[in-house]
Structure formats: structure tokens, C-alpha cells
């Protein structure tokens, strides 16, 4: 459980970090909280020759709400997300999801940037970002670009991030006032990755669902934005027929790994249960 050797760097700006990555080449990796990367390094599943620690870069911290847009710096920890009263008031699904990740020690160090950029299908934030239609802000030596969360994930640990790029922030619109939200996560024990989880955001217009956004965690080799499941409840009164349709549409796109969390059929079944519970909870919270 001893990692391989590496040189350690601690730049003080995004530009310095990007330059470092460019000069060090593809044997360099950034480290944020390290609670995905370091366990992999201890198993020698990752053996970078250079580690670029982002913790001194002030521009990567902070939560701001400006003109209807929320921007969260990549190095913001889960604990900081949970503590933010501004986020809790405008976008409560974030705190709900964060509290379901790992344990207090891990949440003190683990970051939103690491959780979304690593491409680990077990991470919870990616599906949440897809449900919220978030954009990831990416910096490279040529400058800045944006990638939609819904287009970022290609396969387990493969994302749209190119060599030498750093995800610097996530950005999304403030959800409509009165929206309903829920993140339902089935797990073997507190702190485990999801057997299956569903993020739901919706708005109601009287008794009718006006907008809906559903995404799934850990039931494929990427997070899944469940477009058909979302469409299945829009314009309905969220009666059992609509929920059945949404659950069926969600289950149709799952492709879970069989592992200690259960066989394929079980995990797909649980995904359906999570979708149903999340829609019901979100509807109850909507006004």
C-alpha cells in the first residue's frame, strides 16, 4: 500500500498549474482532495510521476451567486458545500447529496471538482450536475472552455478533459423558486457508494408537473441523464401511470456493474425504486 514515487508541486495560480501540466506532460496529475486519487495510488492503479497539488490556488475556492447563476470553485470541499447557507436556501439538493457522500473526514477534504472531474461512476455529484444542466469550466494553456455536464462523461474514468486541462469551477442556473428536489441513494451502509441513486429536480404548475430533470448514479459506467424518464412526467399530475412510465424509462437505460452491491437486475430494480421515491419526495417539496 505504498504509492509509487513522484515529484510534488504546489502552484499558487491556475495559470501556473496549467503551465506545469504542459511542461510535465501526461505523467503529471492534479490532486484536489485526493480521496479518489490517493487510494488508487496506494493500490498502484495510478502511478503519476508528478503530482500537482491545487490547494494553494485561491481562485479555485468560493461559492458565488450572481445574476441568477451559481458558480462553485472546484476546490470547494463537500463540508463547505454543506455549510453554505446561501446554497441551502437557493439549491438545497446540493446539501442533501453532499451529506450522503462518504463520512465527515472524507467530506472535510473531498472537493466538488474532484468528485465531478474524475469520471468515477460511483461519485454522486456528476448525476446531480447533469440533473441541474450544469456547465464545467475548464482551463488549459489556450485559455478557457466550457463543457456541459451532460456531455462530459465518456466511460469509467474517461471524460472530456484533455491532458493538461484543469476543471476550475462548476456553474448552473439558480433553480426556480418553489422547485422540488430530491436525491435518493440506496447504499449497503452509510458512506458506501450507491447501489443506485437518483437526482430529481422538478417544478409544479398547480397540480401539473411543468419541468423535470432526472439523473442516475452508479448504474452504468457513467452518470446517466434520464431524458426519457424526465419527459415521461412532464405535463402529468404525477399519477401512478406517469411514475410507472418514468421508472420504466429510467430502468431501460441502466447498465450497472455486478459487484458486491448486487447483481445487475437488482441494481436496475433499485434504480427504479430510487427514481420513484425521488419524484415523490421532490413533488412533496415543490410549491
Amino acid at each position, binding site marked *: *500500500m505504498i504509492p509509487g*514515487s513522484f*515529484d*510534488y508541486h504546489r502552484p499558487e495560480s491556475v495559470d501556473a498549474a496549467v503551465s506545469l501540466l504542459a511542461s510535465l506532460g501526461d505523467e503529471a496529475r492534479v490532486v484536489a482532495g485526493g480521496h479518489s486519487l*490517493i487510494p488508487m495510488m496506494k493500490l498502484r492503479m495510478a502511478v503519476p510521476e508528478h*503530482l500537482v497539488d491545487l490547494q494553494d490556488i485561491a481562485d479555485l475556492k468560493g461559492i458565488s451567486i450572481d445574476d441568477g447563476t451559481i458558480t462553485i470553485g472546484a476546490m470547494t470541499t463537500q463540508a463547505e458545500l454543506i455549510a453554505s447557507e446561501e446554497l441551502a436556501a437557493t439549491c438545497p439538493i446540493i446539501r442533501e447529496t453532499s451529506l450522503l457522500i462518504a463520512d*465527515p473526514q*472524507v467530506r472535510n477534504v473531498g472537493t466538488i471538482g474532484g468528485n465531478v472531474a474524475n469520471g468515477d461512476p460511483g461519485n454522486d455529484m456528476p448525476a446531480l450536475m447533469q440533473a441541474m444542466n450544469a456547465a464545467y469550466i475548464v482551463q488549459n494553456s489556450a485559455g478557457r472552455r466550457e463543457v456541459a455536464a451532460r456531455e462530459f462523461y465518456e466511460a469509467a474514468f474517461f471524460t472530456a478533459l484533455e491532458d493538461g486541462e484543469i476543471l476550475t469551477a462548476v456553474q448552473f442556473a439558480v433553480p426556480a423558486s418553489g422547485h422540488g428536489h430530491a436525491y435518493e441513494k440506496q447504499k449497503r451502509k*452509510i*458512506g458506501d457508494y450507491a447501489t443506485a441513486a437518483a437526482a430529481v429536480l422538478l417544478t409544479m404548475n398547480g397540480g401539473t408537473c411543468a419541468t423535470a430533470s432526472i439523473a442516475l448514479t452508479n448504474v452504468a459506467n457513467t452518470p446517466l441523464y434520464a431524458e426519457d424518464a424526465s419527459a415521461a412526467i412532464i405535463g402529468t399530475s404525477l399519477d401512478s401511470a406517469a411514475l410507472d412510465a418514468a421508472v420504466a424509462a429510467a430502468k431501460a437505460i441502466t447498465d450497472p456493474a455486478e459487484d458486491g452491491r448486487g447483481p445487475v437486475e437488482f441494481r436496475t430494480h433499485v434504480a427504479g425504486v430510487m427514481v420513484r421515491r425521488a419524484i415523490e419526495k421532490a413533488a412533496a417539496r415543490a410549491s
Partner: protein
Amino acid sequence: MSKIDVKMTVNGTEVEKAADPRTLLIHFLREELDITGPHIGCDTSHCGACTVDLDGKSVKSCTMFVGQANGAEVTTIEGISGDDGSLHVLQDAFREHHGLQCGFCTPGMITRAYRLLQENPDPTDEEIRFGIAGNLCRCTGYQNIVKAIRVAAQQLNSAQEAAE
């Protein structure tokens, strides 16, 4: 690969050493500084036996490289007891209420409980259990750990009230 110069404060004492960057904080503490209170339980970031208090936060020291802790203030179980060796209220409560059997998880558990009670001085049992979810115990079934923390919280709060 090149060694790095590491400076940190551990249990109130300033420390400066050259270290191989791949040295995990837990190994630095145990093997370079002879601070063997924090334990290596699982090495997979689950059990929390390695928990230390870093810049006022509970952190799993097996999942951090020594360079990441450069410049930090670290407190381990050794720093939680008094300088004269007297027991912290939490340590005494664990002893009194059987919050340990083999004792392997105990340094990490108490180090976490120490910070938990600063974050939330009057936790419910449910909040205690959620608060120590990062610390696993194979012996006790947690019942007396939760009780010890509850009792320690009460004692710390009465002492605080008496002082005010």
C-alpha cells in the same frame, strides 16, 4: 524523486524534516516522529483509525501525502490528553463507560469525537452516530462509544456553564 522539505506543528511542537513526497501523513507521524497513537486499520480510507485533527478538521491521515500537510497544525490523540498526562474528559468517559475493548480504533475515535464536540457541543445520539460514521469499531457495537461521547459532552457543557 526529489525529497521535499516539510514543516508542520504536531501536538504543539514545530517539526521540520525532509521527506519522500510519497510518504503518507500517517507514516510520517508514526515512523518519522514516533507518534504511534494514530493507527493504520484498513489502508483503504474506510476505518478512520488513522484520524488526526488537521487545521481544526478531522482528517484521515492515511489518505493524505505529507506534502499536503505542509504548514499545517496537527493534533493527534497524544495532544488531546493533558501535558502532564492527565486524561481529557473524552478519554475518561471512554474508560469509565467501556467505550473500547481492544482499543485499536480508540485513538482515531476519540480524536474524531474531540472535533465533533467542537463542531456540535450538544449532539443528539443520532448526530453522534452520524458524526462518527467515518470511524469503524469491530469490538463494541458502538453502544458505549456513543454513550461515552454523550457523557463527555454533558460534562464539557456543565464545565463551560460553571465557568461562565
